[in-house]
């Protein structure tokens, strides 16, 4: 975990970045959750409950916070260290190996992601949007979401060759953000579209957090958990192997 220590030293003083990343979902919450929420009525959840729109949107945005928090570090910052600064060439001359690097970066990224998710959770609690004691598990769930996107981001970033390629990442993230059931329930889609969304990664996180915060807990959530865990661990593994290929020819 020396990579984490390195990142704390290197970026520890860049609190501004953390703050702005934290405000993004909070701003969305106030504009859409509360603003739009006043125009639309209550929403019926997958579990059949009728909840206010802001209660419905908040857990979804918490999942977005966890995702965004970890994706920036594992894509942009990781790319800079890998291709530009050659940071890992130096690291790999020590006893550390490629999989230590991948694991270290994932832990670092998910800790930032979950810090943001935690801040968002505090805002939710202050607004009285926590409906269930299951919400205690929201933080570990956010950790899991952070890990899933950190692993996947890291793996994807090993294929990035230049700054232009970051457009592809944005291209993947924007539809995830808009259509993963953060803002409206899946039942609003035609069945075909709904079943596509149901297998996308952010949707797993949204479902998981919404289930916990609103107290709609069932075995279905375990599928979300398994999906995210495999995505995170798989991504980390792929990233390690790719690092070996790139840095140790």
């Amino acid at each position, binding site marked *: 975990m*020396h990579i984490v*220590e*390195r990142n704390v*030293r*290197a*970026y520890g003083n860049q609190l501004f970045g953390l703050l702005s990343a934290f405000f993004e979902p909070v701003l969305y919450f106030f504009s859409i959750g509360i603003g739009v929420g006043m125009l639309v009525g209550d929403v019926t959840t997958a579990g059949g409950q009728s909840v206010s729109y802001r209660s419905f949107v908040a857990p979804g945005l918490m999942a977005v916070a966890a995702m965004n928090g970890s994706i920036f570090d594992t894509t942009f910052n990781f790319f800079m260290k890998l291709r530009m*600064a*050659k*940071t890992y*060439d*130096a*690291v*790999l*001359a*020590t*006893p*550390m*190996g490629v999989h230590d690097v991948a694991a270290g970066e994932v832990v670092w990224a998910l800790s930032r992601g979950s810090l943001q998710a935690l801040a968002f959770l505090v805002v939710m609690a202050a607004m009285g949007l926590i409906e269930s004691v299951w919400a205690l598990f929201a933080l570990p769930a956010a950790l899991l979401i952070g890990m899933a996107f950190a692993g996947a981001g890291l793996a994807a970033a090993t294929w990035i060759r230049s700054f232009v390629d970051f457009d592809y990442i944005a291209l993947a993230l924007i539809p995830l953000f808009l259509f993963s059931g953060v803002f409206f329930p899946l039942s609003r889609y035609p069945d075909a579209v709904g079943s596509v969304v149901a297998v996308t990664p952010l949707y797993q996180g949204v479902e998981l957090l919404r289930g916990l915060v609103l107290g709609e807990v069932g075995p279905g959530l375990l599928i979300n958990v398994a999906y995210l865990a495999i995505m995170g661990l798989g991504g980390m593994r792929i990233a390690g192997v790719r690092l070996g290929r790139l*840095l*140790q*020819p």
Partner: protein
Amino acid sequence: MSMEEPLVMARGLTKKFGDFEAVSGIDVQVERGDVFGFLGPNGAGKSSTMRMIGCVSPVSAGRLRVLGLNPRDEGPAIRARLGVVPQEDNLDNDLSVGDNLTIYGRYFGLPRAVIKERAAELLEFMQLAERRDARVEALSGGMKRRLTIARALINQPDLLLLDEPTTGLDPQARHLLWERLYQLKLRGVTLVLTTHYMDEAEQLCDRLVIMDRGHIVAEGSPRELINRHSTREVVELRFNSMEDREHSVPRLADLSGRVEPVGERVLVYTDNGDATVSAITSNGVHPAAVLVRRASLEDVFLILTGRTLDE
């Protein structure tokens, strides 16, 4: 003779990138306390060899043992006892000078207190103490190189690998580095270095191999190599143009020594420079300038490969 296993032992060591063979079956042996050099022009395979020894590049064929261990199975254990100065500086630009040492020490799992003590000592030794809190970008090329060496020493390595330690530095910075490396040698650190400067190899190396296109073409101490492959002295004739040179070469043919045309110069190898100069003038050859000098490793390379080191 010590019974100890050599620090580096390579037999038929080969590195392939696809179909291309960068290192072609070389034999190398480095004993403890030695300063061992790989001298060769660009693309000779020096860095590829260093990266295999540094356990960051898998061996394609042949046998390699480093510190008595096999890099394939025991990479991390070997790397724990190596210091590596890569050809291109890869200092951490997000960290200060001092933090570069601290964090690097942490990669080796060293306790913070130990690192703190060693870092202070190393910064002193490398004459960087007053730059401890500076950002890495603010350092000059020579300072960066010294910091990279200080970083490589944080784990008190048994073996220090230096890939072209002074390439790109001005003469003053080079001499300072040579002097520091010599101090390390006096402390008993074993050094393996690559270079394409023959003066660097002559200054620093106890033993060296001359590499060309993946092969070792000669091996020995600088003195031995010169004695074995070259004459004692070299007469350098400089001409004003290639045509002048072309006209003169046939008239040098009957000299007893070997004659090597290099660009607008002609080198004549001889054991008696002054006598050769008189012979040349009496043959009616009148170059623009004449210089008699002692033979160097550059000459050994030229004689063995027909090319100069910087070609």
